[in-house]
């Protein structure tokens, strides 16, 4: 079924997994470095020159490459299987994948050659090799093309199914892809108009404040680009896996529309401590960020209610007894439920970061990596691993090699992440320990940081082991001879109240009002401040400092 889509999904997943393997393997090295065990000198032979080059690889490959490949694959699969229709323009989607690969290779050469050790935020006036920026551009353009391919498929589905409501899974996938098209305009503007001319010597100066503002225009919705596919799985797929139903289909649709309009006009909450951005705009983005918290709160309620239906269907009783009846023996389920639990803490920490002046207590401290390893590193990555426990077997037509290993992997990730993120959060909050620093050799290292750094290091090692278990299982699945007895179908939960679908208002299936609102909010929240910053464009010279 849907041969092109399946094959593309498999290729996207495979490349994402390779990226996570390389990027992820840098993680434990960083935690070891912080406690004084420096393994970087032995890595020089394989081309890793420094802690910071390793950190750049960790950030770029994990946060940008793994996530984007997985999402492009997963959403292609989800859209096609939800619309029950093969891609309209398979060649466009194949070309998209090729463009992404070419982009990745173009960026990887300077990255591995230590010519782009600028971390994944690549703040100018640090000047990386121009090919790093060209590669990233191609990679993003490829991901746009994936979205175009899905949108054309959707357009044709609409023509063929006049008057039918878009199935939820397809709608959520397409909203995510449309949001991505707009979100990436920020980084596209930064790279095309500022960084590429600068890196290739067409201009010799840039305004770092303007560049940062374009970057964070993209940087926050990037977070939702990661998160929404996980939400899609939690809302629509996980309840099915737990024998439950979607508690509130209408609210799920509304939540995705809210994310479409609110994901972008909040980026300045990453810039509360930026000197050049007026405080009024910071406060405005802080307010919108608080609003953006609401759809996540709704998600927490709705998803747990859907799972509760499953737990009770499985014979669970009492106030909390249903929790034990959830399918904890299924690694795909366990991984995603554990990811959700970690995300509760990630969400609370994120609210702290977003709280305007409260941010000064944690900005750019170890708290921040502590936070985003609970979000992108757990809510997203552990969920994606959980999804891959059914999706990868579905694509290769072979059963998951070992359920037990999958459960060990899920739980070790959970435990490792608790230890690591707990250590990092406290280091940042209590001691103001800076992030992104080779702390093991820092002159300002303090002995009272040591116990927490050891805790984080132990967590990091457990995470490394967990990652290895994941890859053993994936390779074992692909390499075995055993075939699936029955093909795996995408799990999609039924609505709990089928009667609600009939009374669902039409605006929950209309694109125009939401897209107009999204653009209006972007113009209002970014138009004047970008105009102001660009009119005061203050270019400064570039440097290579690594």
């Amino acid at each position, binding site marked *: 079924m849907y041969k092109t889509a399946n094959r593309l999904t498999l290729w996207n997943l495979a490349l994402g997994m390779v990226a996570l393997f390389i990027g992820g393997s840098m993680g434990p090295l960083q935690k070891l470095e912080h406690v004084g065990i420096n393994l970087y000198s032995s890595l020089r032979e394989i081309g890793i020159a420094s802690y*910071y080059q390793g950190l750049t690889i960790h950030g770029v490959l994990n946060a940008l490459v793994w996530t984007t490949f997985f999402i492009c694959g997963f959403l292609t699969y989800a859209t096609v299987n939800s619309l029950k229709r093969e891609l309209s323009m398979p060649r466009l989607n194949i070309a998209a994948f090729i463009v992404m690969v070419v982009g990745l290779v173009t960026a990887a050469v300077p990255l591995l050659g230590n010519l782009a050790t600028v971390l994944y935020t690549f703040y100018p006036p640090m000047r990386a090799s121009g090919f790093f920026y060209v590669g990233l551009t191609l990679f993003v353009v490829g991901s746009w093309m994936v979205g175009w391919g899905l949108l054309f498929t959707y357009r044709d589905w609409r023509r063929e199914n006049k008057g039918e409501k878009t199935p939820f899974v397809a709608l959520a996938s397409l909203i995510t892809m449309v949001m991505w098209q707009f979100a990436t305009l920020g980084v596209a503007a930064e790279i095309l108009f500022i960084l590429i001319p600068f890196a290739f010597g067409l201009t010799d100066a840039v305004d770092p404040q303007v560049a940062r503002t374009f970057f964070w225009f993209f940087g926050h919705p990037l977070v939702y680009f990661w998160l929404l596919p996980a939400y899609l799985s939690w809302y629509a797929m996980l309840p099915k896996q737990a024998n439950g139903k979607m508690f509130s289909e209408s609210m799920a649709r509304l939540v995705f529309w809210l994310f479409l309009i609110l994901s972008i006009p909040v980026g300045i909450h990453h810039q509360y401590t930026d*000197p050049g951005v007026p405080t009024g705009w910071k406060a405005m983005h802080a307010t919108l960020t608080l609003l953006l918290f609401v759809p996540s709160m*709704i998600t927490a309620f709705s998803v747990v209610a859907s799972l509760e239906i499953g737990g009770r269907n499985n014979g669970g009783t009492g106030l909390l007894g249903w929790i034990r009846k959830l399918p904890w023996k299924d690694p795909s389920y366990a991984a995603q439920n554990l990811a959700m639990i970690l995300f509760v803490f990630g969400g609370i920490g994120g609210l702290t970061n977003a709280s305007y002046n409260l941010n000064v207590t944690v900005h750019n*401290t170890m708290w921040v990596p502590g936070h985003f390893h609970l979000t992108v590193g757990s809510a997203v990555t552990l969920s994606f691993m959980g999804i891959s426990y059914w999706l990868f077997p579905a694509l290769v037509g072979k059963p998951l090699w070992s359920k037990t290993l999958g459960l060990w992997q899920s739980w070790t990730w959970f435990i490792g992440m608790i230890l690591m993120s707990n250590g990092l959060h406290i280091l940042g909050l209590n001691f*103001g320990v800076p992030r992104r620093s080779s702390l093991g050799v820092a002159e300002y290292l303090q002995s009272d940081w040591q116990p927490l750094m050891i805790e984080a290091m132990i967590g990091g090692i457990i995470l490394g082991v967990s990652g290895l278990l994941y890859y053993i299982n994936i390779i074992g699945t692909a390499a075995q001879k055993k075939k699936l007895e029955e093909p795996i179908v995408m799990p999609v939960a039924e609505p709990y109240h089928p009667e609600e679908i009939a009374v669902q208002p039409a605006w929950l299936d209309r694109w125009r009002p939401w897209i107009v609102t999204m653009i209006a909010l972007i113009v209002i929240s970014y138009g004047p401040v970008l105009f102001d910053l660009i009119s005061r464009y203050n270019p400064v010279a570039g440097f290579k400092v690594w």
Partner: protein
Amino acid sequence: MHIDQTERRYIIFALLLVGAFGIAIAISSSAYSINVVRPESQIDPKLLTTPGATAYDGFAEPPENRLRELSPGRYEAYIIGYATKGWIWEPEELRVPAGSEVTFYVTSADVTHGFIIQNTNVNMMVLPGQVSKLTTTFDTPGTYNFICHEYCGILHHNMYGQLIVE
């Protein structure tokens, strides 16, 4: 649109919670003046130390004169971050008596830096071309590290200075 009764109540609770957080933030920033950095005049990083060339003469003083006493117990400190001079803050050491109120003016001569003073509310990005300014009071004697918290190159982890409260 169908919304379950419990869910409806929960959403109202979520909205009220978020509203309460918003009010708490507004109060803390106005009543307790816990502030984030706000725009100052822009500056040319090449002319920082040229007297009369920028709106901030403090940067043009020799490092040992970059701490000025404005009136008893009130100080101004002008600090420049350099990756290109070996990842340092200039000046690297400041001394003030306990109870002093210090206003920090911080800028960069080259790449993006970050400026955090441990155990205070001073935390700001430092960008070439911009001046970051925050004020705080040091009541407790001791040594306060000011650490660069944005990656600024291969020896980023060596970039820090000390403020000694006597």
